[in-house]
Each structure stands twice: as C-alpha cells, then as structure tokens.
C-alpha cells in the first residue's frame, strides 16, 4: 500500500461509549485509501454499525481523531454535516424506498433535496438506473419489485449524486442469497470505477467469493485486517 496516499477514512485511537455505558468501540486505528473495497465483519454486537455511524457522523466519537473525505469529524460543525454527507452514498439494509414514489422519483428525490436542476436530474437518474440494470423499471412502484431489485434502486439512489464513498450496512441482509451476489457484483463494478466502498456483512460466502480487504471487529476492537486476496496486515 502506498504510504503517501491520503486516506479517505482515517481512525486514530477512536473510542465510542454510548450514553448507556456500552463501550461499542475501543481504541480503533485504521486507514482506508481511496478506491478500496472493504468488508467489515464480526459477530452481532461487535460494533460494526457503530463503526459505520461514526463515519457518516450519525454518532460522534468520544476520543481520538477521525478524518473522512477531508472532514475532521471531531471538529465538524452541525452546519457542515450535510456537506460531508454529500460526499458519500448510503445504502440501507431495509432499502428505505418511499412507497408512494416510483423508482424514478425515488432516485430523483435524492437529487431534488440537494437542489439539482430538473434536466440534470432526468439525465443522471436514467443513467444510474440503467447502470444498476433497472432502466426498464423506472415507472414501477417499489412494491412491484423483488427485494433484490428494490435494493438496486437503493443503490442507484446512493450513487446518483456521484459520491466518492459508498457506505452500506448489511445491504444484502434482506435479500435472497443469489440476489446478494448481484448487489455485491454491482458494488464491485462501481468500485472498479474508483468509488471507495465500505460494506458490513454477515455473509461469509460473499467475503470469500469477492476478494476484497476484510476488517474484523470483536467487542469493539479491530482484531484482523486482511488485505484483498487474503494476505495479513
């Protein structure tokens, strides 16, 4: 790994303790470089979601330093958080599609609410829908789609504003195993075009079949960090 590359995500001595007293993350140190694809794995309650929530600044770390996409998340003002989020695309485990909006409108929504103009919206939404293989489903409503298709809409929405980082916490958790493959293949394709991808998963088959870097959490600590291809740290 090139030591001079500026990491897109850098944790240094980060700890997170919830108000309830749970120590969800303990002294986490990690660097993720632009263009990497990283699986985050670990047992339930290991702190994977907490790790992701710190990156999207849903939660704030208690100690340490955390830099994401050039934003210092220990010092960021509330007013700047939307700008941080515009640099990333978030994929939800439960899809989060608005049931009253068509596939097209669901994806367009992500552009409308950050003030994109209509022509650009039409162009970009169509492009991203064909990229995820849903070009012919633009007018469908979410309840007319399979789980895998719904998640591809979610993926399209996360991608449409061209983020440099994709954050996906168990994106295949509610999808059939064979369709999960589809999703990760799509993510891998996007990653090949330069987007950094961070994905939490419980699915060992996916981790084995897609040769990406794997970070393993256990009781809030990083216990393994295997570079793509299975090599050790």
């Amino acid at each position: 790994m090139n030591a001079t590359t500026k990491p897109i995500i850098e944790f240094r001595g980060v700890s997170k303790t919830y108000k309830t007293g749970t120590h969800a993350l303990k002294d986490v140190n990690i660097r993720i470089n632009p263009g990497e694809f990283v699986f985050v794995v670990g047992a339930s309650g290991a702190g994977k979601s907490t790790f992701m929530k710190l990156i999207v600044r849903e939660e704030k770390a208690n100690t340490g330093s955390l830099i994401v996409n050039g934003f210092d998340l220990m010092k960021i003002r509330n007013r700047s958080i939307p700008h941080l989020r515009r640099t990333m695309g978030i994929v939800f485990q439960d899809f989060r599609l608005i049931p009253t909006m068509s596939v097209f409108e669901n994806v367009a929504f992500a552009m409308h609410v950050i003030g994109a103009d209509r022509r650009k919206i039409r162009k970009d939404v169509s492009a991203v829908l064909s990229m995820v293989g849903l070009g012919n489903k633009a007018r469908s409503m979410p309840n007319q789609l399979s789980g895998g298709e719904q998640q591809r809409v979610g993926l399209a929405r996360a991608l449409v504003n061209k983020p440099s980082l994709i954050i996906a916490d168990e994106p295949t958790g509610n999808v059939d195993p064979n369709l999960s493959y589809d999703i990760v293949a799509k993510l891998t394709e996007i990653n090949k075009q330069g987007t950094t991808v961070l994905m939490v998963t419980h699915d060992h088959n996916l981790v084995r079949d897609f040769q990406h870097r794997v970070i393993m959490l256990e009781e809030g600590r990083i216990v393994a960090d295997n570079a793509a291809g299975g090599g050790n740290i």
Partner: protein
Amino acid sequence: MKLRSVSYLSKEGVKNLWANRLMTVASVGVLMACMVLIGLAVLISMNVNKAVGNLEQQNVIMAYFNDKNSVLYGDASEEFNSSQDASSTTSSSADSTDTTISEDDYLIHNEEEALALCDKLSKIDNVLSVEYVPSEEGLESIKEGLLEGKEEYFEFLDKDHGNPLSDAAKITLKDMSKFKETLQAIKDTEGVDSVQSQSDLADKINALKDGIGIAGVWIIAILLIISLVIVSNTIRVTMYSRKLEISIMKAVGATNSFIRLPFVIEGVTIGIISAATSTAILYFCYRVAMEAIGDALGIINIIAFKEVALLIVGIFLAIGVLSGIVGSVIMISKYLKKEGSEFTAI
C-alpha cells in the same frame, strides 16, 4: 436556495396536506374558529369604541363664568333657597347699578370678554370644542330640555324678573381618560366661576373602554397560542408520518432549511386557507348580526364590514402565516435535534 428546489419542496408541502387531509381539515377548522373569534372581538371592540366615541361627544362640561349673575346668585344659592326675600333679589338683578355690587367684584362684564374667555378655554390641552352659551340661551335650553310643557312655572324668570344663570361655555373633550386633569384646568382658568359635569359618566366610559381593551388583548393572546399549538401539532404529526423521507433527506445531505421547507409551506398553507375561509364566515356572521341589531335598535350606526375588511384579512393572514412559520420551525427544529441524526436506524 434555488427557485426550482423551492418549487419542488413546495409541491411536497402541498402533498403533505393532502396525504394528511383529515389532520389538515381538523387544524383548518380549529384555526378558523380562533380567527372568527378574534375577528368578532376586533369588530365588537371597534363598534363599542365608536359608540363610546359618540357618547363622549355628548359628555360636555359646562363652565359658568364669573359674571354679575354669578356674584348675585352663584354662591348665594343656599341663601337663595332659605331667603324669603325674593322680591329684593329679583329687583336688584334687573338693576345694573346696584350699589351692593361693584364692577370689580366680577371678571366678565360683556360679551367681548366672554368670547375672549372662550378662546382661552379652547386653548387648554385636550379640549375639543368650546361653544359660548349666553345666559339667555342657557335659560332657553333649560326650559326646553327639562321643563317641556311646564313653561308657565318659570315665567317669573323672564326678562323683567331677571335671569339667574351666568354666561357659560359648553366644552367637549378629546380624550376622556384625561377628564379630571382637564376639568381642573378649566376650573383654574381665570374668569371661570364654576363647572358642571357628569364625571361619573366619564369614569364609566373609561372603565368600559379599558375593560374591552384588556379583555380583547387576553382573548387574542389566548387564541393566538391555541392557533400556534394546533399548527405545531399538525406539523408534528406530518413530520412523524414522513420519518422515512426525512431520514433519506438527511442521508443524502439535504440542509436543515431544505428539510424544513415542505413543512413550513404546509403550515403556511393551512394558515392561508384558514384566513380565507374565516374572512368569508365572519363576513356572513357580521352581516346577519348587523341586520338583526339594525332591526332591533334602528338608529345605531354600525361599522360596515367593508371599512374593516382589509384590517380583518390582514390580521387573519398575519395569524395564519405566523403560526404556520413559527409552528413548523419550532417542531422541525425539535425533531431534528432529537431524531435528526438517527437516519440509519428508524
């Protein structure tokens, strides 16, 4: 914020209204009731103020001048009652060269001086009008006013027997609340012998005005708070029903003002709809009431709705728009503070 986003988000706000139409109708209903009540309070107080204004103008102060008659009869009114020597007084009144009264004993000797005094009185602060009432005229009006049909009892008060009234000025005031001060100033004016007034009427008018003013302010304040609570509550319900949308907006990096806008639009629209319907309702209520009152009392002149329509619409729009904006801003800020960051777990 760009115009196209405003138009998109406005549409979202109107969609909210439709999606929660039951809530919308309920809150428009309550807001409308508040507005109609506020409108009635305003109309009633305006009408009462106008009526009171008419009364005020009738509440005159009579200032009697220090002239010859005042010296002859003024202070001696008790003596006059007790004295049986009526003939001596009447005869002396007719006699201008009476030996017991010299010209130095009184200040107003002729009409010129009386008019000068009137002029002086009209310059007192808060005096609206001064009308000179010569003693003969005063006597006439007493005869007419009080003694209609019994003029013969007062025949002894004719020219030959003399007129016990002094020259006087009929004074009206601008502001009844300064009644006491003004009365004192009139009393203290050189040349004024005594004043006559209905100070209890002035007090009653002032108390009525104050009472209506205070009650009006309270009614409006309470109704405003109710309107605000109603609108906030509606917005809160919409907000929770739109949790999903809000979480996505947060996730893709919408700013708080973007997230807020559809809700503000929703609140303001509720306000405007309520203002429009309230104006119509108030107009019909007022017309019906006016006809009823007009039929019952005939002469009372009520303020026409036309005269106050602009004011009423202005008040309603102000209430509607303000409670829409304030209600939604308060609610969404509260929401964003409490749940705003929890977009990955709803």
